[in-house]
Every structure is written in C-alpha cells, then in structure tokens.
C-alpha cells in the first residue's frame, strides 16, 4: 500500500491531491511502525508527518498558483529505471546477509541494548525504555536535536518572519 501511494504521488498532476497523499503515506507509515512495536516513532510520524506537515503544505499551496503552467511531460526513460531497479535488487540481495528482524543475537542488539533493557528501570526509574534512552542515556543527542529544531525555527523566522518589503523599496535596493 505504501508503494501504491508512492507511485500514485509520482504520477499525480494536482498539487492538492499530492499533499493529501503524502499525509496518507505518513499515516500508513505510522501504522507500519505500530506493527513493528515502535509506538513512540509511530506517534511522532502520525503527529508530524500526517498532521503538521500536511497543514504546512496546505498553507504553502495557498501561496502558489493552483495550476502551474509548465508541467514536464512524464515519459518513461529506460536508463534511469534500469539503474534504480539494479540498485534496488542489489540492496535487497544484501539484506539476505542481515540478521533476522528482532534477532536478539544481532550485533546491533548486543552492544548497549541489553543494559538499557535490564538496567534502565533500576537506573532511571522509567518504565518506558524509549524515554529513558532519549532523555537520560542519550541526553546529549536530544539536546542537539532540540538545538536543531530551534535553529530551524530561527532560520524560518529570519527568512519569512518579517513583513514583505514593498516593491518600491525593493527597486531602490537593487
């Protein structure tokens, strides 16, 4: 279903429907994350991907002309398709050597994960391991992430936050 939504997105001409489909894509991804037992990630995906991003896209749509004049004709080119297919096939072939999903003996699960699972309750008192890892064990990383969000906000504020200059002033400035 994810693949079907993605293919439909590529072929769509209407920006409004495309925005709605990206929201649906996010919601489907969130459902997939729930199936993989990653509830926190699913929560974020549903709130940010399906919620806020869609609203921001809609806000952006009201700023651009609803029917852009130049639409590139979509024609199927064999070369890029072949490259994509070969790369995809190579990646799928490589997954054969990966440990099975959720394998407790996989290298990724043997490094710090056992300590998180065994000791996080006694060390931080948090029943939710995800929270204890994010907020306590990896507090530095989360501080960095918040700084990134803050910086992005400042960037948007600098670019879009002030009222638009009047055309006369712009001409004077040039």
């Amino acid at each position, binding site marked *: 279903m994810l693949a079907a939504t993605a293919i439909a997105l590529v072929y769509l001409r209407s920006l409004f429907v495309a925005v709605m489909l990206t929201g649906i894509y996010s919601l489907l991804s969130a459902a997939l994350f729930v199936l993989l037992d990653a509830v926190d990630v699913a929560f974020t995906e549903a709130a940010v991907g399906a919620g806020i991003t869609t*609203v*921001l896209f809609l806000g952006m749509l009201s700023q651009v002309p609803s029917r852009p004049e130049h639409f590139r004709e979509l024609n199927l080119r064999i070369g890029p398709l072949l490259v994509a297919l070969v790369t995809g096939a190579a990646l799928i072939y490589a997954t054969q050597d990966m440990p099975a999903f959720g394998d407790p003996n996989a290298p990724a699960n043997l490094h710090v994960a056992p300590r998180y699972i065994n000791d996080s309750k006694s060390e*931080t008192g948090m029943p939710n391991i*995800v929270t204890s890892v994010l907020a306590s064990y990896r507090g530095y990383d*989360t*501080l960095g992430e918040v700084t990134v969000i*803050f910086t992005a*906000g400042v960037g948007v504020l600098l670019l879009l936050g002030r009222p638009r200059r009047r055309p006369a002033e712009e001409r004077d400035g040039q």
Partner: protein
Amino acid sequence: MDNNLIVREVANLFLPIIVLFGLYVQFHGDFGPGGGFQAGVIIAVGVILYALVHGLTKTRQLIPLRVIRVLMAVGLLLYAGTGIATLLLGGEFLNYNVLGSDPLTGQHVGILLIELGVGITVAAVMVMIFYAFAGRGRE
C-alpha cells in the same frame, strides 16, 4: 472559515481535549508512549486548529509572535540549564542523579525538566512556522 457554524463548534469542542491530551503526553511520557516532542506537536496542532477556525489575526492577538519567539529560546535554555545545574551540583553535564536526594528522584526531575524544555521549544517552533507561512502575503 469563520462563518461555518458546525466546523467552529466542533473545533471549540475538540480544542480543550487536544491541549489536555498534549499535556498528558508531555507528563506521562515516562510511563507510556510519547514525550516532549510529540506533546509539543500536539499542542501546536491545537493552536493551528484554532487559527484555522477563528482566523490568524485573532490567534496572533491571543498568542503574539513575541511570546512565541521567547518561548522558542526558553525551552532550549531550560534543557541546557538543566545540564548546567547538574554541573553546578557536582555531576557531569546532564547527569540527573545529583538533582534529587537519591539518584532515582534526580533522574525523574531531570527527565521531567528536559522533556518540558523539548515540548516548549517544539510547540513554539511549530506555531511560529505556521504563523510565518500562513501570514505570508497578508501584511
């Protein structure tokens, strides 16, 4: 959308629930799924819904951009300040064990504080981005 009665009333009905749910996610993140980031987004969604139904001008009077700009920095400073506080209390940066009488209480206080910081910054930035996009071309 100001004259759409049903949309307006339903939105008014949902707004307190959305904000309450955001606060629940914020402070219950230690026990259930969620945390500062998700809570910030949910509360921002509440503000954006209000803006969509009641208009941007009214929302900006209610929550001015000045306040949002300050809140953006307050959240980050709360997070970093928690780290500085742990330094001053003799621990490593962001080692919450020193914040309480025993390590577990300290961890609890520390995580609560930094999650609050994350929530404030995320909510403020999201609302600010919405203001910036929605207000464009109207001044």
